[in-house]
C-alpha cells in the first residue's frame, strides 16, 4: 500500500500550484465570476499549453497519456485556487465521455482540439426534474430520414453558454426499463433550434438552460450506440463524481489554510484568536474533515484510475466530501466573522463553491442511498 504521490504527481501538483498562484489570482476569479463567459481566453490558452486539457488523453490524440489519478491531483489544485471556466465540463464530462465511448472518428476529431484548448464542451444530462437518474431523461431524439431530431429542455448544464459542442443525453426509445432507450449525441452548440440561457446561480458557475427545439443531428453524432447511452452516462458520472470530490478536497484545504492563517493573525482580547480553544477546535475539526476527505477521495480516484469497480468508493467519497467541505467552509466563515460576510473578502468564493459542489452529481443523501444499495440493503 502506498498512499503517497509519485514524483511525476508531485511535480504536477507543484507546477499547478505555482502556475495558478501566479496566473489565477482572486481578482481574476471574481472578474470571471461576474462575467457572462466565466472564463479567460488567455488563462485557458495557457492551461492548454501546460497540457492540462489533454492530460488524461492518449498521446495519439494530442494528450500526455496520464491517468485519472493524475487528473484528480490537478483538479485538487484547481479547487484549491478556484479556477473559473469550462475545464470540468470540457475535460471530465465531455472529454472522458468521448474517450470512453466515442468512435475513432470522434476521438480524432474532438480530443486533439480539446487538448489544444481549441474546443469547449458541455454535457447536458439533467432536466427540470434536477436529478441524475435515467428516468429523468425526458428529452426526446426521434429518427427521421437518417437523422435525429431532438426536443426537450436541459437544465443546470455547465458552461453550455461558451461550449462548441454539447453532449446531449436523450431518449431514443420508450422502454419499460428507463435505463434502456437512452442515447448520447454530440450536438453543435450553434445548431439551429438550440437555445442557451445563462442562469444566475449561487456559485456564479455558468449553469444554463438549454432548450432543444427540433434540433437536427446526424446519426454519426451518436456517441456509442443508439439506445446504449445510459452505461456511458453512468460511467462518466462516476468519474465526474470522484473528480468533483478531488476539486472539493482542494477547496476545503484552501478554506482551512485561510482560516488558520487568519486565526494566527487576528488579535482580540490582546491575543490571537487562534489561541482560543473554541477557534482551535473549529480548526481541528476542519483539519479532520479535510484529511478524511482526501484519502477516501484518493482511494476512489485510484480505483477509477485502475479500472476497478468503484461504485461504492465513489459514493462513499461524495457522501462524505459533500458534507465535509460544506462544514469546513461554514467554520471558516465563523472564524472570519464579519469580514467574511463581505464581497471583498475571498472566503465566500469557497463557500459558494462548496454549496454548488455539494449538490452536483447528487448530494450526500443521494450517495448514501447508493451506499445502502451497494450494501445490499
Amino acid at each position, binding site marked *: *500500500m*502506498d*498512499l*503517497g*504521490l*509519485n514524483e511525476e*504527481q508531485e511535480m504536477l501538483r507543484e507546477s499547478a500550484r505555482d502556475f495558478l498562484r501566479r496566473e489565477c489570482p482572486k481578482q481574476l476569479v471574481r472578474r470571471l465570476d461576474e462575467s457572462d463567459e466565466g472564463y479567460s481566453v488567455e488563462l485557458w490558452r495557457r492551461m492548454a499549453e501546460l497540457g492540462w486539457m489533454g492530460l488524461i488523453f492518449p498521446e495519439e490524440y494530442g494528450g500526455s497519456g496520464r491517468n485519472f*489519478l493524475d487528473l484528480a491531483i490537478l483538479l485538487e489544485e484547481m479547487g484549491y485556487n478556484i479556477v473559473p471556466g469550462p475545464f470540468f465540463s470540457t475535460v471530465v464530462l465531455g472529454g472522458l465521455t468521448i474517450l470512453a465511448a466515442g468512435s475513432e472518428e470522434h476521438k480524432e476529431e474532438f480530443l486533439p482540439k480539446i487538448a489544444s484548448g481549441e474546443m469547449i464542451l458541455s454535457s447536458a444530462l439533467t432536466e427540470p426534474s434536477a436529478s441524475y437518474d435515467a428516468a429523468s431523461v425526458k428529452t426526446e431524439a426521434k429518427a427521421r430520414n437518417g437523422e435525429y431530431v431532438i426536443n426537450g429542455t436541459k437544465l443546470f448544464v455547465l458552461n453550455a453558454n461558451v461550449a462548441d459542442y454539447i453532449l446531449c443525453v436523450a431518449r431514443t426509445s420508450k422502454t419499460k426499463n428507463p435505463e434502456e432507450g437512452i442515447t448520447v449525441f454530440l450536438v453543435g452548440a450553434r445548431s439551429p433550434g438550440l437555445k442557451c440561457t445563462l442562469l444566475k446561480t449561487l456559485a456564479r458557475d455558468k449553469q444554463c438552460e438549454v432548450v432543444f427545439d427540433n434540433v437536427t443531428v446526424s446519426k454519426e453524432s451518436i456517441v456509442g450506440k443508439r439506445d446504449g447511452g445510459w452505461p456511458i452516462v453512468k460511467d462518466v458520472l462516476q468519474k465526474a463524481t470522484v473528480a468533483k470530490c478531488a476539486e472539493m478536497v482542494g477547496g476545503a484545504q484552501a478554506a482551512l489554510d485561510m482560516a*488558520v492563517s487568519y*486565526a*494566527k493573525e487576528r488579535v482580540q482580547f490582546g*491575543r*490571537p484568536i*487562534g*489561541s482560543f*480553544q473554541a*477557534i*482551535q*477546535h473549529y*480548526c*481541528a*475539526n476542519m*483539519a*479532520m474533515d479535510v*484529511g*478524511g*476527505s482526501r*484519502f*477516501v477521495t*484518493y*482511494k476512489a480516484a*485510484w*480505483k477509477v484510475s485502475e479500472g476497478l469497480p468503484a461504485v461504492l468508493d465513489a459514493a*462513499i467519497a461524495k*457522501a*462524505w466530501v459533500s458534507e465535509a467541505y460544506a462544514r469546513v467552509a461554514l467554520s471558516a466563515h465563523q472564524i472570519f466573522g464579519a469580514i467574511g460576510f463581505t464581497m471583498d473578502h475571498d472566503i465566500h468564493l469557497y463557500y459558494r463553491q462548496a454549496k454548488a459542489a455539494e449538490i452536483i452529481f447528487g448530494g450526500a*443523501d443521494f450517495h*448514501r*442511498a*447508493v*451506499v*445502502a444499495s451497494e*450494501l*445490499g*440493503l
Partner: protein
Amino acid sequence: MDFRFTQDEEAFRQEVRRWLKQEIPQRWIDLDPGIWEETEESWALAREFQRKLGQKGWLAPAYPKEYGGLELSHMKRLILSEELAYNRSPMSIEEEITVNWVGPAIMLFGTEKQKKEYLPKIARGDIVLCLGYSEPNAGSDLASLQTRAVEVGDEYVINGQKTWCSYGHLADCCWLAARTDPDASRHEGISIFIVDMKTPGITLRPLINILDRHSFNEVFFDDVHIPRENLVGQKDKGWYQLVMALDFERSSIGYAAGNQRVIEELIKYVKATTRNGEPLANDPLIRNELAQLVVENEVARMMAYRIAWMFSKGVHPSHESSMSMVFISEVMRRTANIGMRILGHYGELDRDSKWTVMNARIMRMCLSALSIGVGGGSNEIQRNIIAIRGLGLPRK
C-alpha cells in the same frame, strides 16, 4: 498511489484469520466480553490467548527479533491489528498498553538490563503492566501529578495516589509516573518507574465502571520501596519519555475494524427484521443512517491506514494520530446511538433475555463508547494537539 495490499500481505491476512478461527476459545466467544467488560475469567482467557499470540511472535510483532518480536512490516502489523479486532480476539487494553506504550519506552530509554528483562517477557505475554499516570488532580493535566518518589540509598520510596488504573488488580507491574523533583517546573522533575504490584505498601480500591464491572482502581502508595534500578530512563526527564512513548503507535485501526463488525451486524439485523410488516432495510431513514456509518467508518479506516503508511515511510505521525483517534471515537459513539435508534426498545435489553438482540452489543457499546474519546487523552486534548502541533496555532 496504490491501495492494494501485496499478495504476500493478503496471504498473511488469510493466515491470521485461519489462526484466529482455531485459537479463539469458545468460552471467550460465549462470554463475549466487550471493552470494559472483562472479568477475572475473561482476563485469564485473554492472558492465555496472548501467550499463544506471543509464541507466534504476533503479540509484539514490531519488536526486534532479539526481544521476541518479528520486526514485522508496518502493513502486516496493520493487517494483524485489523484482524485481531474484527474477530474480537481475547485482548485487553492493558496488554495493548504494555506492548505499544511501555515496551517502546523501555526500548527507547531503558538500560540494556531492563530491555533484556522486560521486552522478551512483554513479547511473550508473560507480563502485563498497568498505567500509573492519572491522579485525582491530574487527569488531562497530567503534568500536575503529585505522587512522590524519593531516592533513599539504593531505593526509591513512593508515596501518593493514582487513579483510573485499569486492571491494576490483575496486572503484574505498574508503569508509574512520579515526581522526583518537586521544585522543578511542571514538566521537569517527573520520572518513570516499574513497580511490582505485589510490593508492600500498595493498596487498591476498586472503581466500578459504568458497565458495572471492576476495571479501574484507585492505587495508594504508602512508603513503597522499590529498587533504584527500576527507574526507566533518565531521572527527572520522564515527561518527555512519556510523551514520546504515547506517540509510538496509535493508528486506532483496531477501533475501526471492531466498529466495522458492529456496523455489519446492524446491517444484517435490519435485513432480517420486519417491523409493522415492512423489512427494516426498506426504511429510507435507516438506510440513510447505516450508509452514513459505513461512510464514516471508511473515512476512519483511511485515517488509520494513513498512519501505518506514514510509519512505513519512516515518517513519524503526531497530530495525525490524534485525528484518527478523535474521529473513530466519535464514529463509535454515533454507531452506538444509531444502533439504539434502529433497535428501538430492543436496544435497551441487556443479555440473558429471550428477547435480547445482537447479544445486547449496542446497549453495551452505548456505555463503553463513552470511554473512547476520554481515556488516553480526551478528544478536547487531542483537538488541542491537532490545532497546535498540526496547524501551528498559538498557545497564547
